[in-house]
């Protein structure tokens, strides 16, 4: 006898799980359908197939610029966040100092602060310091938001690594930098890549904090947010949405599968 689920219970739960998946993916599927619909307003009945909206957004300069800005911000902030995340994670795994638990909690605090609050406090900070708002201020905001995610990915991986590997490298005359570069980094590499991806996608999609810290250059979410208020732009925005959603789904799934395999390979005895 199965102690967790009866046969009927299993059947009901399977149906429920399937229904939830339909609920989660149906809105995305609906966007996909209407991105090819030849009408200015997304409504039933459907009125013929068109690639007009895809054509329009590819030739929309403002949108291209916004995508480019977001890519730059995401690249800057994810590299900085991962670098800081590695340093912080190394610090709390390598040494057992007093207040270590408190330090870890403190590093994760931005996770439980609402984005509005982070946004306005950074905005006030830059205002007081007299720093003009620009791509760099948004990047700083995104570093603050994404550091906890990078730590959540990197810290467990670093703790798995056998400490004696680092000690062996020391014994063989490697300095701390060489040890990091030739021993630690290769072992945590899959986690570094997934931390980078998480930080990049989070930043690329972030609206709340960016809305307070953006200068004159719009990021993609800021562009989207304002486009959502003008119905004439809607079909084009739907087409962009489909491209971005599909691209991110593919990247996420591929990255996760790759990380599993890479870590399994690192664990396997040579």
């Amino acid at each position, binding site marked *: 006898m199965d102690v967790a689920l009866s046969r009927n219970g299993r059947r009901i739960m399977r149906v429920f799980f399937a229904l939830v998946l339909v609920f989660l993916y149906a809105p995305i599927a*609906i966007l996909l359908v209407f991105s090819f619909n030849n009408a200015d*307003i997304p*409504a039933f009945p459907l009125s013929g197939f068109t690639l007009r909206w895809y054509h329009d957004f590819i030739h929309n300069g403002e949108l291209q610029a916004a995508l480019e800005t977001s890519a730059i911000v995401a690249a800057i902030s994810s590299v900085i966040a991962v670098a800081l995340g590695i340093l912080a994670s190394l610090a709390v795994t390598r040494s057992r100092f007093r207040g270590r638990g408190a330090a870890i909690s403190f590093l994760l605090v931005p996770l439980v602060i609402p984005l509005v609050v982070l946004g306005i406090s950074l905005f006030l900070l830059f205002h007081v310091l007299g720093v003009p708002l620009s791509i760099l201020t948004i990047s700083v905001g995104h570093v603050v938001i994404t550091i906890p995610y990078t730590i959540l990915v990197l810290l467990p991986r670093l703790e798995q690594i056998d400490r004696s590997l680092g000690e062996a490298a020391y014994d063989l005359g490697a300095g701390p930098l060489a040890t990091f570069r030739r021993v630690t980094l290769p072992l945590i590499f899959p986690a570094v890549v997934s931390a980078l991806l998480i930080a990049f996608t989070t930043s690329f999609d972030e609206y709340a904090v960016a809305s307070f810290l953006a200068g004159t250059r719009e990021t993609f979410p800021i562009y*989207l947010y304002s486009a959502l208020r003008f119905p004439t732009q809607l079909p084009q925005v739907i087409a962009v*949405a489909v491209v971005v959603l599909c691209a991110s789904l593919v990247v*996420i799934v591929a990255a996760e599968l790759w990380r599993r395999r890479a870590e399994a390979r690192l664990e396997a005895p040579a």
Partner: protein
Amino acid sequence: MLALFPGPHGFALGGWYRLFHQGYMSLFWKSAQMSLIVSALVVAAAYPLAYFLALSGTRRKYVLLLLLIAPFMTSYLLRVLAWKVILGDQGVINSALSSLGFHPLSFLLYSRFAVMLVLGYVWLPFVALPIFVTLDTLDRGLLEAASDLYASRWQAFVRVTLPLSMPGVVAAFLFVFIPTVGEFVTPSLVGGSSGYMYGNQIVDLFQQGFPDWETGATLALFLVAVISVLTFVFVRFLRLGEARVA
């Protein structure tokens, strides 16, 4: 340092006075209620999903988990956009209804209902995760022991599984409650005036025609205070739980 206090006030408690006397508290309660309902419903829906993944012994456990969580990793704004398209007055549901000869439903968009539906949709995949982790690490031997001692499946669930998974449930609840109680993006896109939340008020105090940064900052600080208390209580609860198990 003087620049820290914009305006002629210097040190002032006016923001706190206004927080408690100008209807901001009732707006806070309204937002808190909305996100309490959303969090409770979403956790209740996510529990069976996590239970199925962790304990049904399905071989495709991680594939299904990835399938469940993937939407959460994609763009937040775009998922809200999808619902705007679906719920609008001329949207997917209403245009389908009227082409079938029914009256369109006006409460779908720009309402509290819309805000809560979209927030639930956005957070559901993520919430399954912490519950899944606690259930997945649960020792199945405990359930077998309960069964050997003539507990029915239901009794085993109520007396063993549920109590042991409470930390995951409470964490999941907070993971939704904390971001949704301060939410302003979703309500401003699908909420209209009846879905206006506390977070919108904070933003408006900073960005509207007559900005009042002092009051806005006070409102934000109050939000952080409430959330800190909740988080602190949760951490204590976890410690107590660990002490009891040990």
